[in-house]
Each structure stands twice: as C-alpha cells, then as structure tokens.
C-alpha cells in the first residue's frame, strides 16, 4: 500500500513542480528559493510530520481590516517583490514566508488558496482607498497581494517583505486568507515575534488568550545563505472545524 501511495505522490510532485514553475515564472529567485527555502521547508516537514500527528490548535480568526484589494492586481503570483517582468524589486526586507495549511487533526489541506496582502514599506496598501490618497508615497514595485495554491502536503510559500507598522497599527502584520474554491475558510494576520509594537497593537491585544497570540506570531529569522539580509518565516495555518467542512 505504501508503495502505491508513493508512486502517486511522485506523479503529483512532478505536476506540482511544473505547476509552481508556471506560477513563478523564470525568475532568478527561483533557484534561491529552491536551494534555500524549499529544501529547508521539506526538511522541516520531514522532521515535524510526526509531531503534527495528533493535536493542533486552530489558528485564530482575526479581522480582515479595511484594505483587502478592491481590484486584484494583474500579477497575483506568490512573489510580491517583483511585479511581472519588472527589473526593479520592491523596497523592504525580503522575507520568504512559507508553511502548511492543516486541519486541526494535522491533515494537510491541499488545493486551498492562501492569499496574503500587506502594506508596502512606505505604509500604503494595494486598495484604492489607501493607494489613491497616498499615490506619491507608495512603492509602485511592491505587488501588495499574492496567492498560492497549496500542494498535496498543504504547503505554500511567498516571497514578500517583512511587514511594517501602519498608521493606527503599531505592529507590522501580514494579512492572510485561506479559501477553498470561493469559500473563505479563515482570515487572520501574521505578526512578527518580538516586535515592540505588538504590545500596543489593538488587533494583537484583542486576542484575549495568550495561546492565540502565540499561534499568530512568526519568527522572522535570517536566511543563512543570503548575502542581502533576507529573512524567512514559517507560518503553519490550522483550520478549525466548520459545519460545512465535513
């Protein structure tokens, strides 16, 4: 039985590699991503899959906020640093964000769409209510929004910038939404572990349970091989049980 599953997995893996290359294009970062983030993530999956086997707490739902894109950008891939074939990258500390979408019993949620959005390094969101008034301020090279279809391991990854605070929000944060088809499964936010602004941030502080806070804090750690100070953050998303999610 194991042998059968493995062959199936191999086929799916081939498909996904092909698919993900299609999504990401032939960008130079792909090699970096493959050698750095993908390998380390796979290694993590390997070492932690056993640990995930039993009980996982659901990632808490948090407010969507006012700036989910009102018009999706032309480029919605998982690289928010480069828009289409531009040669100018976004401003900010490049961050490789990756993780898995899992059920509360630890099973991977495949074919789920993970969407992220955040303001650019100059504190402007990709939403006309924010980007039009602040047109001169915005970083036109930041994609502001991206999405990725989870693999059969529930895995996803993005290249983006380390989130910065926003007026009225003292904590840098990345908005995250998980969908299955058109159905929204979870809307939440990822925070930077150790950021001093967390303590005074109203969304962060609205979480009354310290465990919930723990579940939305990510450690932004330097990518060892990077000469330009890139960071990586792992954010596993655990979906709670919903009546329609049998």
């Amino acid at each position: 039985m194991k042998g059968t599953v493995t062959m199936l997995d191999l086929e799916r893996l081939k498909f996904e590699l092909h698919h993900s290359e299609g999504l990401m294009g032939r960008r130079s970062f792909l090699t970096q991503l493959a050698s750095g983030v993908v390998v380390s993530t796979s290694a993590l999956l390997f070492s932690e899959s056993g640990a995930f086997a039993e009980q996982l707490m659901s990632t808490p739902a948090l407010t969507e906020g006012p700036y989910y894109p009102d018009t999706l950008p032309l480029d919605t891939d998982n690289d928010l640093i480069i828009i289409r074939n531009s040669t100018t990258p976004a401003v900010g500390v490049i961050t490789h964000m990756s993780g898995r979408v899992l059920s509360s019993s630890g099973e991977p949620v495949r074919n789920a769409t993970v969407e992220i959005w955040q303001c650019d390094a100059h504190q402007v969101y990709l939403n006309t209510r924010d980007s039009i008034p602040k047109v001169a301020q915005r970083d036109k090279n930041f994609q502001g929004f991206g999405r990725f279809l989870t693999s059969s391991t529930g895995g996803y990854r993005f290249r983006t910038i380390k989130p910065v605070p926003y007026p009225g929000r003292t904590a840098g944060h990345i908005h995250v939404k998980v969908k299955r088809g058109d159905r929204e499964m979870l809307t939440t936010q990822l925070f930077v572990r150790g950021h001093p602004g967390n303590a005074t941030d109203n969304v962060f502080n609205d979480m009354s349970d310290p465990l919930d806070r723990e579940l939305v804090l990510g450690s932004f750690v330097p990518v060892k091989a990077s000469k330009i100070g890139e960071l990586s953050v792992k954010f596993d998303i655990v979906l709670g049980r919903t009546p329609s999610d049998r």
Partner: protein
Amino acid sequence: MVRMKAIGQGLKGRISTTIFICVTSAALAVPQGGSPVDRFMQFDVKHEGKVTRVEVTDPRLVPVYDAIDTAKKGSITKAQVIAYFATQIQNSHRGPGGPGDFGGLGGRPGGPAGPGGFGGPPRPGTILPGFVADRLGLTAVQKQNLAALQKEVDAKLAAILTADQKKQLDGMRRGGPGGPGGPGGFSPGGPE
C-alpha cells in the same frame, strides 16, 4: 541539480506525511475555547495534572512549554501553567480605555484563579472594540479621541453604578486592567 535535491527532500517529506495521515486519521482535535490553562492542559492526555514536552503535540506551542519548564525538569505542572499565563496577562499592555481585557472563567471550583481568568469578549462598556476600530480604519488622532471618550464613558458609568454593581461589573471584566493600568486579574492563591 538543485531541483533534484529538492525533489528528493520533498519526497521524503511527502512520504512521511502520507504515512502519518494513515496512522492518525482518528486523532482528536484540540477542543477550542476555554481558558488558556484548560486549552494547554489538553496536552495532558494521561490526566496526570502535568504535561511533558513530548505531549505538546502542536509544535507551535513547544516554545510555550519551554518558557514554562525553565528548569528543564522534563514536565510542567498545572500550577506552573497557571502561573505562566497569569504572568503573560499581567505583562500584556493595553492602551488607555482599550478594549477587551482578558476575560474568562477563572475561579472554577478547585481552580486557583480566584476572580481572574482568560478568554472572552471585549469588556462591557467598550464603545468600539479594537477590531471594530481597525475595520473602520481609524486614524491615530481618531483613536486618541476614542480613547478619551472611552475614559469619559468609564467615569460616567462608574458614577451611575453602586459600589456593589461596580464590583460585579469588575467581575465581568474579569480582572483585566479597566481603562488605563490596573493589575491583571489573575489573582494568585486559591486552592489547587
């Protein structure tokens, strides 16, 4: 070359993942809700009143375990878990008049929490909870004004209520720092 390596590693991960799904399809999910102490003590599958590091099956919460087991004893007691979360709550900051203190159901029979506790909606009397303020996209100035208004409301509300009612309300607010400052309500003591 790099790609091959990725495939190799990825496959390992996938195989192990597939196997563990088969093994654990009947695994229980952690019930959501309840106090953080109760939630964390769900890892005490043997119901021994203590949790070992291995029992913390959610890798994202192993750091919490490690923060409690500073002496590296290999297990932590419920009392330690309670003390840890009490500290967490006391250390958390709140803006003046800010929403939602740590509410919850402390003081259960045999619980050590006294009137304190965790989990729950924003405290009664909050004009705009933080998530609402965020949704509305309030500016920093608006937030300051809101905080001032909240302070005023709190003061006027306090003037209306009798001492006993205030006490009750404080109980409902579950010991969090009402408005600016004030100690977190997870009062120590009480029988285990």
